[in-house]
């Protein structure tokens, strides 16, 4: 069972939710797809680390074999190639590694070279297998790393929590693609509603069953809750806004491993999610 945790902006509580849900399960896998700024490992402090470098393919041109036909330049939709003074120039950072130029070159003047863009790190934290994607600073796209992370767990039936990057861009779509269920984490503000609306549109586009966890709840009006009720979006549960939880989290501690009451809150949330996934599965078949 793969559960993606996402939100329209950073700081709503994606990592809080996914780290704690993964920790209350008997055994689970936690996958940090927020490759530009992965922080789940700061909570888990995983042991027995194994690292695997991730690279992408970038075209390399043998200028002597090039006859200047420009098939590669004309084909590239990302404009990663230029042909100037009888030489092909490759803009590595603009290239999306589609390999089209290599296939099209009639003179076989283009080959591919590996370019390292980051790594995938695996480790163990008590009952949780922790997978972290780390993109090198300055690299334009984390998609290849996310693809590798999800490939690694594709055959696994274990409960898996996918901690997504914020927003609703390509890297988020890549992260939720294989998910059985999406948890949307929302803040009780108008801005929070705007962001919730954005990610809900995204998960609907992917036909993903989804529900909302209302984070930072106070005893006052909650625009995010109103939005869910109005649009008939399943509310999975609420997490209170309190200093103790905030302090535990700020200190890099996993709340459910520290205090029984948070263990209860997140156990209930996990039960609610599991029920939803179960009923959705029934609905889907």
């Amino acid at each position, binding site marked *: 069972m793969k559960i993606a945790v996402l939100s329209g902006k950073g700081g709503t509580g994606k990592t809080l939710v996914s780290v704690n849900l993964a920790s209350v399960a008997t055994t689970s896998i936690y996958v940090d797809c927020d490759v530009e700024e992965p922080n789940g490992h700061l909570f888990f402090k995983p042991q027995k680390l194994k690292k695997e470098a991730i690279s992408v393919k970038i075209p390399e041109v043998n200028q002597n074999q090039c006859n200047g036909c420009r098939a590669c330049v004309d084909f*590239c939709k990302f*404009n990663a190639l230029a*042909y100037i003074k009888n030489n092909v120039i490759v803009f590595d950072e603009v290239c999306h590694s589609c390999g089209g130029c290599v296939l099209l070159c009639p003179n076989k003047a283009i080959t591919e070279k590996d370019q390292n863009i980051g790594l995938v790190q695996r480790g163990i934290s008590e009952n949780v297998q922790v997978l972290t994607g780390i993109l090198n600073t300055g690299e334009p796209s984390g998609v290849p790393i996310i693809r590798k992370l999800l490939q690694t767990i594709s055959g696994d039936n274990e409960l898996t929590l996918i901690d997504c990057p914020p927003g*609703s861009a390509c890297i988020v779509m890549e992260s939720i693609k294989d998910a059985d269920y999406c948890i949307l984490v929302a803040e009780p503000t108008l801005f929070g509603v705007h962001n919730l609306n954005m990610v809900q549109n995204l998960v609907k586009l992917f036909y993903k069953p989804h529900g909302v966890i209302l984070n930072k709840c106070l005893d006052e009006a909650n625009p995010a809750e109103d939005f869910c009720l109005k649009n008939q979006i399943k509310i999975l549960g609420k997490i209170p806004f309190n200093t103790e939880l905030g302090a535990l989290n700020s200190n890099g501690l996993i709340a459910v491993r520290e205090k029984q009451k948070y263990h209860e809150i997140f156990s209930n949330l996990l039960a609610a999610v599991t029920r939803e996934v179960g009923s959705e599965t029934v609905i889907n078949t």
Partner: protein
Amino acid sequence: MKIAIPVENNSMDASVCFSFGRAPYFLIYDTEKNENRFLDNSAIASQGGAGIKAAQKIADTGVEVLLTPRCGENAAEVFKNAEIKLYKTINSSVEDNLKAFIEGKLQLLGDIHPGFHQHGGN
């Protein structure tokens, strides 16, 4: 000598366009023949790499000089390879800039910006 300028419209009274890669048109002015023509910038619709594509198009016309308010680093790399010199425009008037260039009053463009690639964030 041929000179290129990014412009907002395809007429001589058009304003110089503040963006290079996504300028709607490029004026190509030939100083010897005193002729001008306008190139449609097809790169304007590109999802990314507009500067590279626009620079390729300009290099293909055989210009030696580009007058522009600014230029991104990828386009600048294309121009460097093409041995096209970049000069900084002084105002939005095409004629003022052409005149200033011919009189040797324009400065080389020094500040190449890092580009606004990757959709400006998420």
